[in-house]
């Protein structure tokens, strides 16, 4: 079979099965079974495929996935996440769109202690959206910042999907985790500037409401009592990695343990909410890991059939410059993000993308951070962005899907600007990892 036919079968076949509605993991399993029969020697290939499945997820580099998710779930289920909002709210004075600004700042802080975008968006949506709507915020001004900052969670460590990207692509996980910090913070700053400017131009979007202005210790108390200790989880994770006490993988366990210890010290960890957090963790990490198990032999079969090499040679011999090829890769990722979830995006594209990155001598951390921004965009892109659905799930009925789609558009534009910023100024992504790791 020619490499072109193999590429069509493997890449086209898996995409067709995905769109037919077969769960992602089973789509990859099905196409791998066919690939194993055709390219790995029939029955022997099928037995080999089964043996490969064990090694696919029995990998120490994947252990941060459940552990980072556990951190977010513990904070969410114990109610400690709420304290972050309270602590940040008291510090922010009267600015246009104050509550939306509070949501972005609190969301950024929460991103640094949670490894789950759903936990962040659901927490902010369920707590802040009703307050904003009750104070007369337009649904687009109330929902947009919450979804946008939820997506930024993926860029700011800890992030389960960043670990997965590092593990599947072979890019340094610790460099990727730290590489997402600056673009994530830049996005948060852009969001705040946008909210203030937008509300100044049209104050009806977020009517100014009276709020209790605390003075002295009362203003700082929740910040010192809750936010600083909780943010210390982030410091512990990054410091243990940077200082060489623990590998990135192990630092995830330290972060999860430290989160549980803090929750215990605050008296908010009960057997019931610990179990709820563990169940949430098992559900999200179980589904990600099962997709990896299903897709394990996919890149091997692509490579064995000659499809990977064929495609890489075709693209590298097309006369396009490396920058043009990278730009095209990002555009394809953004397009995939319209329909496909983040794990599938990685599994479909990385077997072709990474050999190209190596061939062109591109900085893998720079490439990886742009990949992350594209995946973060995928969380926000209509019609299937996960965070749009999460927001609809927690929003009251007066917030329609149309509001949510409209609300997210400026934040998509800002994410595209940051993507372009990283593309043209790689230091935005690679400076901090070079300094810290």
């Amino acid at each position, binding site marked *: 079979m020619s490499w072109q036919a193999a590429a069509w079968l493997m890449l086209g076949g898996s995409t067709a*099965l995905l*769109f*037919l*509605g*077969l*769960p*992602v*993991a*089973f*789509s990859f*399993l*099905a196409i791998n*079974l066919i690939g194993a029969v055709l390219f790995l020697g029939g*029955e022997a290939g099928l*037995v080999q*495929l*089964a*043996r490969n*499945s*064990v090694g696919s*997820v*029995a*990998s*120490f580099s994947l*252990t941060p996935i*459940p*552990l980072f998710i*556990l951190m977010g779930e513990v904070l969410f289920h114990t109610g400690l996440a709420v304290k972050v909002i309270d602590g940040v709210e008291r510090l922010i004075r009267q600015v246009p769109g104050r509550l939306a600004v509070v949501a972005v700042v609190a969301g950024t802080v929460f991103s640094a202690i949670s490894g789950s975008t*759903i*936990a962040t968006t659901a927490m902010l949506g369920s707590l802040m959206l009703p307050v904003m709507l009750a104070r007369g915020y337009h649904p687009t001004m109330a929902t947009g910042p919450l979804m946008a900052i939820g997506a930024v969670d993926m860029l700011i460590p800890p992030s389960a999907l960043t670990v997965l990207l590092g593990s599947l692509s072979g890019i340094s996980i610790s460099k990727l985790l730290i590489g997402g910090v600056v673009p994530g913070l830049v996005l948060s700053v852009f969001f705040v500037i946008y909210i203030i400017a937008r509300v100044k131009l049209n104050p009806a979007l977020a009517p100014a409401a009276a709020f209790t202005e605390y003075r002295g210790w009362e203003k700082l108390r929740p910040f010192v009592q809750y936010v600083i200790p909780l943010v210390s989880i982030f410091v512990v994770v990054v410091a243990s990695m940077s200082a060489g*006490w*623990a590998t990135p*993988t*192990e630092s995830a*366990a330290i972060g*999860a*343990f430290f989160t549980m210890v803090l929750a215990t010290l605050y008296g908010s960890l009960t057997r019931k909410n610990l*179990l709820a957090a563990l*169940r949430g*963790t*098992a*559900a*999200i*990490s*179980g*589904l*990600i*890991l*099962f997709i990896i*198990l299903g897709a394990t032999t996919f890149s091997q079969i692509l490579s064995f059939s000659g499809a990977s090499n064929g495609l890489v040679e075709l693209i590298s011999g097309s006369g396009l410059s490396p920058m043009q090829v990278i730009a095209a890769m990002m555009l394809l990722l953004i397009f995939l993000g319209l*329909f*496909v*979830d*983040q*794990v*599938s995006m990685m599994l479909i594209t990385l077997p072709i993308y990474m050999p190209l990155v190596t061939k062109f001598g591109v900085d893998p951390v720079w490439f990886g951070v742009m990949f992350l921004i594209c995946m973060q965009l995928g969380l926000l892109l209509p019609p*299937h*962005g*996960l965070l749009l659905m*999460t927001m609809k799930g927690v929003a009251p009925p007066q917030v329609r899907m149309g509001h949510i789609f409209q609300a997210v558009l400026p934040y998509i534009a800002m994410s595209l600007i940051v993507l372009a910023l990283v593309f043209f100024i790689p230091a935005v992504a690679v400076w901090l990892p070079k300094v810290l790791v």
Partner: protein
Amino acid sequence: MDRLENAYGRLLEVLALAGCALIFAMTLMICADVFLRNVRIVPGLAGLEWANEISEAMLYLLTLLTAPWLLRQGGHIRVDIVLRSVPKAVGWGLEWLVDAMALSCCAVIFYYSARAAFASYSAGSLSIKTLITPEWWLISALPVAFLALTVEIFFRMRRLYLGPRAPRDDAVSTG
């Protein structure tokens, strides 16, 4: 049949709870390893050298223990854009096609993974890392999980038959 399906659901819940216990144990074990490696409080013990290997096995078992439970919850993500854009009856028909494919996949993998486990057992193959263990110990979890998935797909098809003539509301994305 309802009682059987409910009992099977409870079994899947127990498997998922075992998965939760693995996550908790993994967290504690890795922390103990890092602590003992950096703070030499026990003479001659510089960390738990087997911790990485056991964590890997736990991750693998977590995946297999939760997979059938997630299928019961409709938690295995998929792209449902086509299912939602066709008439409900057609979407329902596509669900049958999709279930048939998933069933075939799971049955085939059950068979070949059982063969792989048996071949490994017969050959006495060993996994030689920090710990030396028979290779079939881990491989044999694979046919068990895929058998559980195969059975759950049968129940899933039954629910599809008894339910409304429309596509299911399964999960569509990860977080």
